[in-house]
């Protein structure tokens, strides 16, 4: 079996499996099977489906876009390495989100132990507060734009204030629209714990942003 991880191969290299055009209509588990059967484009299709979703999930969880992209890369590398171990009876999205979630949690733990990284994050936020306004839309006055951007930043900061294990559940539910069962599988906690963490995260989020939105 050809296993070269070529994500930009020529059309003529496609083996006698499902054609490249047909991959778009396949389920994730079927794509995994196709890749293991020698269809190299199947992995590229999986990357295309998940790269932005995972990037936003990790970015909203750790708050650092560049680092989030590195962690998405790491997620795909781990998926690639262990693709043969994937259980096709399970959901592929749950599996890949579990890997991404664990990487994000490790990143947050490492940051909390590393004062230099913490300082860089603070510096980055300070720079964001002091950058010039971008007048991207003329229909809004500068005051409106400032208020809108200010609100967005505060909302983002409110999410960042949530405790790590609450934040992961909050992002998975509110941004990714995962079910409780999926969140339970991804985070490895019981359904009751998922519900409890989500409720606490929502309450805390509402408490933080209430003064800004009234």
């Amino acid at each position, binding site marked *: 079996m050809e296993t070269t*991880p070529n994500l*930009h191969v020529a059309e003529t290299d496609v083996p006698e499996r499902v054609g490249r055009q047909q991959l778009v209509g396949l389920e994730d588990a079927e794509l995994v099977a196709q890749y293991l059967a020698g269809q190299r484009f199947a992995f590229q299709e999986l990357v295309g489906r998940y790269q932005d979703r995972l990037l936003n999930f990790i970015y909203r969880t750790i708050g650092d876009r560049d680092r989030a992209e590195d962690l998405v890369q790491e997620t795909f590398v781990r998926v*690639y390495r262990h693709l043969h171990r994937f259980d096709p009876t399970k959901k592929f999205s749950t599996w890949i989100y579990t890997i991404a979630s664990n990487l994000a949690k490790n990143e947050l733990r490492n940051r909390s132990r590393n004062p230099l990284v913490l300082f860089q994050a603070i510096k980055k936020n300070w720079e964001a507060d002091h950058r010039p306004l971008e007048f991207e839309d003329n229909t809004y006055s500068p005051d409106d734009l400032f208020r809108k951007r200010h609100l967005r930043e505060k*909302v983002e900061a*409110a999410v960042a204030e949530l405790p790590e294990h609450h934040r992961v559940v909050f992002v998975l539910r509110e941004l990714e629209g995962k079910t409780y069962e999926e969140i339970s599988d991804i985070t490895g906690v019981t359904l009751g714990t998922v519900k409890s963490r989500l409720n606490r995260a*929502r309450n805390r989020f*509402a408490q933080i942003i209430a003064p800004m939105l009234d």
Partner: protein
Amino acid sequence: MTTDAVTMVCKEFIDRYTDYRDELLSSDERARFEEHLEDCESCRRYERVLSRGLTLWRGLPVASASPDFLPRLQHRLYHVEDAGKLSTRRHLGSAALVAVASVGLLAVTWMPFAARASIEVELPAVAVEVPVTFVADGQPSLFEEPPYVGPFLAPLGTTLDEPAGLFTTNYVPIRGDSTSPTELRRTGQLDESR
């Protein structure tokens, strides 16, 4: 609705708000929550703030992977492949080494049995005349000349120009009667009394 009842229901509303928001309640319970929302300004505000905050948060610009994301990933996957191949080769090398070692061990284990099984031929004894030479102190030697012994290996007193036994410890046997004083001599001291 009395104040106590509102307070109680407000706590219940907040505690179980996730069930309400995610539509996990029965129709009767849902009706109770909606009824409470109509009556309670505080809980209405809570729901309004949360909904607006979530809308704002979801409206944040969506991050997209940078243009070099795929090439970088491809590069990393090539490394994964290379590492896999190297690891396979290493495993094959280790397996071959283990196999060779096993064969060697088996050979060594079976060697005595094989030797025992071999035919032993008794040869007649052959008498050989050995030319015997004598060294200066009168001891016979098989060598024509005494073998060269370096100064550091030579016995003391033979290579140095000093009387034999000068730097050697004189042996003093332990006597039966412990009453006699212990005879102490410095190493190398000559016993003048003898």
